[in-house]
Structure formats: C-alpha cells, structure tokens
C-alpha cells in the first residue's frame, strides 16, 4: 500500500485533512461501540445477581426479578422459530431449487425484501389487529407477528447457503437415481446447514432485541408459568420479554433495574454474535473443500 504513488514526497494538506477525518470517523464508530458496551456492563453489573435472574417480579412484595421475562423471551424465541424456520427454509428451497425465473419468483423476492424493510412498529400494529383480534394480547400473537418479521432473515440465509452448494452435488444425487425431495433432504439441507443455522441465530438475535413489535402483541406480563399446564396456557396469556420489561422500567425511571436487564441482554447478544461468527467460519471452510 505504501509508496504506491511516485508523488509520495509531496505532502498534500487536503489529503492529510481527509485522512485525519477518516481516522476520526472510524475511531468515533468503534469508540461508541466500546463505550456503549463498557458503560452498560459497568452500570448494570451491580444489579445483576442470582436472585435477580431466578425470581419472579412481585410489586406487592417489592421483589424485583426478571425470571418471568427470561422465560417469556425463551418461550417466544422457541415458538417463533418453530413457525418461521420451516416456512423460511421451505420458501428458500422453492426459490432456489424449484422455481423457474419469472414473474412469480421476482414477486416473492420483492416481498421478502419489502418485509426486511418494514419497521417493527408496523409489524406491531399489524399483529395487533390481525392476530390480536383472534388471540388477544398473548404469546401466540407475539410469536406469529415475529414469525413474519424474521422470515426474510431465515429465507435469505438459506438461499445464500443453497447457492453455495455445488451443482455437481445435485446432478450427482439425481444421476444415481435419487428423487428430487430425497436429494434435497439428504444432500442439500445437510450441506446448507451452517447457513440455515446462521439465519436462525440471526433471527434469535432479532427476537431477543425486539420490542416495538411485541409491545402491542405479546403485552407485558411478568409471571412465571406454573407447571406443565401453565406452560401451555401461557400460549394465550400476555408475556413481556426482557426488552419490554427494560422499556417499562426505564419509562418508570427505575434505571438500576433497566441497566441490569440491559446487561443481561447485551451478554446474550454478544454470545449470539460469537455463535454466528463461528458458524460463518464453518460455512467458509466447507466452501474451500
């Protein structure tokens, strides 16, 4: 990179200014990130302890715990993925393996891109009047709304992964007499698995961090489900995830609790990020072979 120009000896002030500006912006961006993460951990660390994580909130007893919200978060993640993964993967398989280029394919591609661009508050409004009309403020309403929201993430990543599977795999499988569905099931899906998992983990990250789409769909309950039946009944009860509880606490001005939840959330986001990196690495290695 150095000495690429023969004019190097001449110092240009405008060049140096611009270069300084570039450095400044980069340091600003990275500094912001480090600042945000550092500050949240530093400020929230004091609040987080074992009982904060494993007890249920009880305003009457004056106990603050986020166990109910943690369970709600997990619940909604599982429920959403149960619906979104098969649909997203299925849609991607259709687009990549079955569809012939044409109007329908570009329509589907366009709608997937549109879904990516729709802000979560719109999903929240839609979920509120569409699913909420049937199921009220409930985990089910929330999960169905989020299913539409994370669909493009899973579909796109699956498509990317399917594209990287060499065509020779397909013709090889079909050539020795496998049917198409058999080929997809035993050759394509396993080869595309790291990509699909990346999509799923990105979706988990999006669900964990989501708030605007859940406020008017899943609501803000904070009780733990009681027993096995309680877990089922929870489907039709309202439940706030950690982000919702964080928002409500901060609206009440209880910043200690809010930073405690932020701390837990951030740790979770960091973990998911590492997991995505690891999987992306695996996907690359597969490509190189």
């Amino acid at each position: 990179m150095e000495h690429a120009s023969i004019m190097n000896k001449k110092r240009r002030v405008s060049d140096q200014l611009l270069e300084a500006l570039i450095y400044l912006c980069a340091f600003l961006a990275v500094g912001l990130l480090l600042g945000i993460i550092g500050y949240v951990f530093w400020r929230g660390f004091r609040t987080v302890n074992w009982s904060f994580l494993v007890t249920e909130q009880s305003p009457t007893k004056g106990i603050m715990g986020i166990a109910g919200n943690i369970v709600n978060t997990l619940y909604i993640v599982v429920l959403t993925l149960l619906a979104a993964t098969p649909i997203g993967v299925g849609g991607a398989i259709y687009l990549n393996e079955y569809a012939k280029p044409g109007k329908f394919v570009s329509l589907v591609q366009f709608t997937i891109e549109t879904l990516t661009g729709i802000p979560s508050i719109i999903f929240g409004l839609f979920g509120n009047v569409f699913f909420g009309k049937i199921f009220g403020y409930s985990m089910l309403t929330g999960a169905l709304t989020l299913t539409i929201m994370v669909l493009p993430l899973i579909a796109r990543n699956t498509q990317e992964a399917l594209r990287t599977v060499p065509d020779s795999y397909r013709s090889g499988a079909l050539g020795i007499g496998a049917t198409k569905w058999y080929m997809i099931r035993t050759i394509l899906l396993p080869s595309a698995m790291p990509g699909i998992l990346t999509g799923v983990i990105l979706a988990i990250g999006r669900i964990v961090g989501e708030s605007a789409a859940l406020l008017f769909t899943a609501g803000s309950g904070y009780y733990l489900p009681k027993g096995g039946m309680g877990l089922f009944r929870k489907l039709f009860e309202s439940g706030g995830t950690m982000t919702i509880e964080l928002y409500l606490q901060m609206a009440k001005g209880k910043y200690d609790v809010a930073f405690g939840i932020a701390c837990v959330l951030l740790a979770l986001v960091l973990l998911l990020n590492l997991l995505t990196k690891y999987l992306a690495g695996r996907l690359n290695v597969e490509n190189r072979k």
Partner: protein
Amino acid sequence: MAEKQSFSIKGNRKNKALVEHVAEAVFTVCALLAVVAVASITVYMIINGTPALFKVGIKEILFGTVWQPAAKDPSFGILYVILTSIVGTTAAVLIGAPVGILTAVFIEEIASPRLAAIVKPAVELLAGIPSVIYGLLGIYLLNPMMYKLEIALFADAPDHQFTGGANLISAVIVLAVMILPTVINVTVSALHAVPKQQKAASLAMGATRIQTIFKVLLPSARSGIAAAVVLGTGRAIGEAMAITLVSGSSVNMPLPFNSVRFLTTAIVAEMGYAAGLHRQVLFTIGLVLFVFIMFINISLTKILKGREDS
C-alpha cells in the same frame, strides 16, 4: 429444471411421484406466504388507517397542527408529527451517513487487514444491540447533557418550555448512531465490489491514496453507497423504541430544543390506552409511516436494479 420423474428402480414409483408433488406444493406455499404476508400487511394498514381520514377529514389530519386527542373537542392534526419524522430522519442521515461512509473507507482501504478484522465485527455487533438499550443510554446519559446545554442556552428566554433534555437533538443523535452499522456494512460491500484494476490504474497514474479513494473508488461505488444511505434512512424513520422517551412527549414543531413526537413514537406512546377514533388516528399515523417506508423500499429496489443493469 430437468425431468421431475424418478429414476429409482426400487420402491413404488407412484408413491414417490406423490411425495414429490406434495414436497413441491409445500415449498411453493412457503414461498407464497411471504407474498401473502406483505399483501395482508398492506391491506390491513389501509383498512385500519383510512377510516379516520374520512371521519376527521384528510386536510384536518394531515395538515392540522393541533394534537389534542383526549380533549372534549378532540383535534387530530399530525402535520408536526410528520414534519418531525422528516426533519429528524434527514438530520440523522446527514450526520450518520458521512461518518458511516468514511468509517467504511477506513475498514476497506486504510486499515491494515488485521485492524479491519477487529473493526468490522465490532461494527456488526453495534447492529445487534437492541434498540431499547440505545434508548436507555439516550435517556440516562444524553438527556441530562442536553438539559445542561438547554439551561445554558435558554437562561434568558423566559418563554422557552424546558424539556429536561428530551428533545429533537437527542433523538437525532440516537438515530444517527443507530444507522451507522447499516451504512457502514453496505458501504463496505459496495467498496469491496469496485474492480481492483480501477484502483490500480488510478494509483499507477500517480494519484495519491486519498485522491484515489475520493475521485475513483467512492464515485465508482456510488450506487451501493446510495443503497446504504437509503437503507439507513429506512432504519431511522422506522425506529420507535429507542427514541420514544428520548425525544420527549409532546407534539411540537421540529425545532432542535423542542420536545417532539415522531410518527413511530406517537404510536408507541398512545397505543396503550387509545380507543375509538383516537386509536384509528394512530393507525392513520401508521399508514403514513407505511407509505414512507414503501416509497423508500421501492427507491432502494430501483437503485439496486440500476446497479445490476449498468
């Protein structure tokens, strides 16, 4: 694709053909669901957003400036809300986009590969931070700072309504930070896609590194950068939870030190208790936001298409 017939000599051919057809049908339905979802969102936003327009009057809602939904004689003018979203988003993009583009230049052109390998994931991480956390930091750190500034600036202005720092500037700063990762990531891939010969040619002609970046690389990647800015705009105009508390709680002209409501925050703040006509107007606000977003989406598709064609 090739013949869909199965060539296996084992098993029942009819059954296999059936399974094949079912599989294809199921996958088609999955793909169709995305179309159905967008169609129903559009239809539902229109169904729920338009009644208030006719009940209150299009002019009264879109161009009215008085927002008093709970008054005895309620008034539902959302002009200031729309203007706030436009002004706030524009300001956030004007701040965030240059910083984001230059950071992308740093990652792609200036930084050593080792440094870039640290900065790039860090930026991606910035994208993963939940928006409520940005909001929390905004209200806890930014607002008090703004309040101090406000007290200093308006000490001699008796008719200024003090906002406690929850004002348009705070919201714009939070939004500008939030669009950084989007702008950076998309710009990085746009710069990456510029053919290496162009850079080599420019350097070989004696242009300096900085001249090459600003005269060759950035112009060459302009459609990708345009896409980055448009995506950032979409992100900023649709953001709700991060700025709900940071931007204040009353509907005002979008002036820097005014407490303001955005399209998104107006919905979040009042949806919980609104009923009847008030609720319908909130859906109208949602519809306005939806129209903005659709406009942004379509221009994005145009930009990306234009890039493919050229």
